[in-house]
């Protein structure tokens, strides 16, 4: 947990506005902490290089 990205309450407000969310000030510190965990996970996933032929799409068979 020591390497989690830093997320401020201002970051939470800015990102929330983009998806039409208004986050109560009393919730902001806990949302920032939860988002830091998720962004840490996102960073771990994104930094892993994947070949271009790895696809997320389902495969359709007759």
């Amino acid at each position, binding site marked *: *947990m020591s390497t989690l990205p830093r997320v401020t309450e201002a970051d939470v407000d800015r990102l929330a506005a983009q998806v*039409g969310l*208004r986050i109560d000030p009393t*919730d902001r510190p806990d*949302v920032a902490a939860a988002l830091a965990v998720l962004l840490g*996970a996102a960073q771990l996933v994104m930094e892993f290089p*994947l*070949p271009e032929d790895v*696809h*997320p799409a389902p495969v359709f068979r007759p």
Partner: protein
Amino acid sequence: MSDAAMADGAAMTAEAIAADVRSRRRSARDVAAAALERIAQRDRGLNCFTLVRRDDALSEAAKLDARIAAGADPGPLAGVPFAAKNLFDVAGVTTVAGAKIEAEGAPATRDATAVAALRRAGAILVGVTNMDEYAYGFSTENTHHGPTRNPHDPTRIAGGSSGGSAAAVAAGLVPLSLGTDTNGSIRVPAALCGIFGLKPTFGRVSRAGVFPLASSFDHVGPFARSVADLALAFDAIQGPDPTDQVCAERQAEPCVVELQRGVAGVRIAVAGGHFSALAGAESLDAVARVAAALDATTRVTLPEAHRARAAAMIITAVEAADLHLSDLRMRAKDFDPMTRPRLLATALVPAAAYAHAQRFRAWYRARVAEVFRDVDVLLAPTTPYPAPPIGAPSTTTVDGVLVSTRSHLGVFTQPLSFIGLPVISVPVVTPGALPLGVQLVAAPFRESALFRVAAKLEADGVAAAPVVSRPPD
């Protein structure tokens, strides 16, 4: 096992109950009444149930008795009382999903497919159980309904999110229950409550009529105190269901018949790497005991399992956000404070991370499939430590590393449900200590191998789930 547990039927297996009811040694109504009495006596202290179907259960049991008296086949689970997480639709009951918001909804008009299947097999639904709100948690510390307490130590959590279903089985209130598992929500509470829990292969059991959390990973499965009971329940609920779009078309493969086959020829290995780090010594000891009992000396590594866990977190978060964004915009204050900040954060995850996580999933699934060319069953800890106290601080230290007390409970379950692998969590109990679980993991649709290994461990006394009997609270 105490005399009291024997006397009130708390320790009876589903298998034994069904044999008694089928042969008319006991009536289904008496069995249901005894289960309801145990719930009345003990559930005030444990808080497993959010609703008890007292009159309906007694009436349905009496009808089953009448059918038996008339010569009808009552099914393999005749008269077995069971509970279902309040995430499953039950006709006449509101699917609350641990949420104040859903409590406003109308009762379901039909049963979820898995609930209907158990009832068709003769089982009697006595009630629905407590959980983390919207199944987004590992602790069942639900603010709306109160926490479910661990029968082994009521000051501790039962695990989650299917905590009520697990604790009800551990305490002997019912011999069988249903839960759901998206990231570990069957396996974690099974381990912390010291019982058997099965998360089948993704698509093996219908999810129709079950409130979703993250469609990519949602699974349905049973809890029990014996391997035979777990197999009986699994056999009743597995198989195709045209009303569930993701349910596999593969025909059911009964597992009760596997239990006597032994483990000769089953290649068993211990998962190392990610699955042997950031865990308490007692969790790793439990794996070592199971491995020794099975003569499993090979160690294998699932590549990038830590990243698989991270990807599971991202996919779960984004799919949960998709389901709840409207309510989070309109009425965030109605969410459980234990859930609300985490659910609000799910809506703020960058989109590219979700797509990359899904692509990573395809890559990881292929790498793990390579491991299963040489191995039939993998062993891994279920949780990194036993049940934390209710209300425990949000962080704890493991191996000198600061981790989230609750979300770290899923560190070993998430990389497996991420790719839909079937897993049985078997209970490993040390006298005087809190229970722990060990995951038996197989390739997709190889539940049969899991049941063979679980049966061997139970027969040898390595895995056991004795009912937890305490005086009435």
